[in-house]
């Protein structure tokens, strides 16, 4: 599906998104809000950073669901990703780790998530576990063992300040006004996410593997008849989704610089928002990334409101992304899911 096809098939969606933007802009003008104080270059940067973990989890989740397995455990994989990235950084570099330690830790966190995702995939594909219950379980296990790791290492559910990733500054290009600062003097993890989103789109819609994944979710019998092992395709997609969510958690940690394990941990619903992001994006990796940017922007509004002098209690402004999710699901909730989601497939042979 190309971008134009996508726009054509989702005219209502694209149209209403555009209408929403116009409406918000009109409201801002009418209420005499300081738009330039809210939409600043810093805001775009922060919104992109906030969007990356959500986008990564969303892209992973949509692969799993396209293949027929609803990975509702994204949130849990993100908790593990964040906790493990923090733990490995700490074990490698102690209180003053280098950037190399941090990158190694991100890689390690992804590999550990792959291991957990293999267990999850075996339970859901091989042992036909209830996908919803097993996914919830991953979240619970993450909420338990993530903070557990923190307490074992640091004696507290929160880690001390560890390390955050340095911005990648491209010489010359970073001097371009606005765009330079947003794209060429930014977190390399934002750029990585953009690359992964495009790659995920290409693989899903332009390669054989992508068609296999789509077929595994839409019509597993046909795929089986064509001689492709449905279980194997689903294993790959589910393991990929765990890896992406784990990467999302690790990226969240690398941007924040320390692990927070109180309450619902630092992940705080981002995995769930990721699911909504890909539903909103019609299971299209680029659409999901765009939706993630919307949620990331809402997440960062609080700082903008403060600098613009808009006096709303933080606790309430923090709820914007969650309210947005409910609104999105209300108007776009009945997205058509792949036909065979949630159904274990048993080959005839």
């Amino acid at each position, binding site marked *: 599906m190309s971008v134009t096809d996508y726009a054509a098939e989702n005219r209502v969606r694209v149209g209403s998104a555009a209408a929403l933007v116009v409406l918000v802009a009109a409201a801002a003008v009418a209420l005499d809000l300081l738009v330039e104080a809210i939409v600043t270059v810093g805001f775009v940067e922060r919104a992109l950073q906030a969007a990356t973990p959500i986008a990564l989890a969303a892209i992973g989740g949509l692969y799993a669901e396209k293949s027929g397995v609803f990975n509702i455990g994204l949130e849990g994989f993100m908790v593990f990703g964040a906790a493990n990235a923090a733990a490995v950084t700490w074990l490698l570099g102690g209180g003053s780790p280098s950037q190399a330690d941090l990158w190694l830790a991100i890689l390690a966190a992804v590999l550990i998530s792959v291991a957990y995702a293999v267990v999850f995939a075996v339970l859901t594909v091989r042992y036909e576990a209830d996908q919803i219950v097993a996914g919830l379980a991953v979240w619970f296990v993450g909420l338990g063992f993530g903070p557990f790791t923190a307490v074992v290492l640091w004696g507290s559910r929160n880690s001390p300040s560890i390390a955050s990733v340095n911005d990648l500054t491209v010489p010359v290009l970073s001097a371009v006004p606005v765009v330079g600062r947003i794209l060429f003097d930014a977190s390399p993890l934002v750029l990585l996410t953009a690359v992964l989103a495009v790659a995920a789109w290409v693989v899903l819609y332009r390669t054989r593997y992508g068609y296999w994944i789509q077929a595994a979710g839409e019509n597993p019998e046909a795929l089986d008849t064509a001689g492709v092992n449905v279980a194997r395709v689903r294993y790959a997609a589910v393991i990929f989704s765990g890896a992406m969510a784990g990467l999302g958690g690790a990226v969240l940690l690398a941007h924040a610089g320390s692990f927070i394990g109180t309450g619902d941990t630092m992940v705080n619903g981002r995995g769930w928002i990721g699911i909504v992001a890909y539903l909103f994006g019609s299971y299209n990796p680029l659409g999901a990334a765009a939706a993630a940017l919307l949620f990331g922007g809402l997440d960062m509004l609080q700082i903008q409101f403060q600098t613009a002098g808009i006096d709303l209690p933080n606790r309430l402004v923090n709820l914007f992304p969650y309210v947005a999710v409910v609104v999105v699901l*209300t108007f776009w909730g009945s997205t058509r899911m792949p036909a065979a989601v949630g159904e274990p497939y048993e080959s005839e042979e």
Partner: protein
Amino acid sequence: MSDADPGRARAAVDRAADRMLDASVLQRVVVATASTALALLVGLAVVAAAGYDPLLFLGNVFEGAFGDENALARTLKFATLFILTGVAVAVAFRAGVFNIGVQGQFVVGGVVCVVAILRLAPALPTGTAGGVALLVLGTAAAALAGGAYAALPGVLKAYAGANEIITTIMLNFIAVGVVGYLVEGPLRGEGNRAPNTERIPEYVELPAVAFDSPDFSVVGLAVALAVVAVVSVVMTRTDVGYDMVTSGHQERAATYSGVDAARTVVATMTLSGMIAGIAGAVFAVMVQGYYSDPSGVGTYGFDAIAVSLLAANNPLGVVPAGLLFGALDSAGTHIGINSDVPVQLIDGIVGLVVLFVAAPELFRVVAPRAGFGGDDR
């Protein structure tokens, strides 16, 4: 289903319901027990791997759960809350509606109960009679508020197709945020340093029977068991309950025999939320006596999901499952004070229980190989 034959559809529904309601209780007990045992084993392995003594940990678990009268009262206190929230989850899950929002409904019910009691207290006589009246009114307000807060995602699911798992989780965050804001500001008791509401009057309390504990009353446990009994009768002996259960498991057959699926979803969510609201009221009155920042009131509504799943979403099964989780949480409190093993381990074990319960096939495949019988298949 080619031609219209409501009689045949009804028969299909009956068969489905029979299968579901009777489906080998033994099998479920085996799966639940095996899941719990396996989760505990993994937990002990983690304890050992993290460099603590697993046997000492196990000893602490038993001591913390049943060691003395205090421990027992604490276990029963947690069990009361787990049974109530567990039934709230079970009602919804049994009907095929994934209400993950019990935590939020529990919070909304609790704070509404406290506010109702505080606002109504001046209008009613003090003393026992007024206390009882306030308890009843506060609990009713909590049930209404919890029910309404659950009806919202029910309506969104039934009429807009919004996935209730995600909306209820979002509404949990929203409930915690809004109530947190309210107790910090508008509802904060006068002169309170901590972000809490005022205390409810002294005479509004559950009487201490048998246990001399400030935050557990046998009356609270009795309320929980009464709710279990009522729900169990509603689910198995009334038309409403029957429609709920069948539409959860045989949606098409249920629709075919004349059940309004959308309305059933809303009714299920409302009933589930009302019970969660009652759980919130019991927590507010029996345990706290005021309402505090909900991000720190405990995650009963989440753990209730594990309780319900362990009970195979059977309201009666929630009682033993709630006791087990009450014991685990009570042990967690004890371990938090008396041992240096991080209590978060208990949460992890709860998660593992759910993971294993989700995959009964695992035991069906593994059990014969490991030489266990115990399966009537």
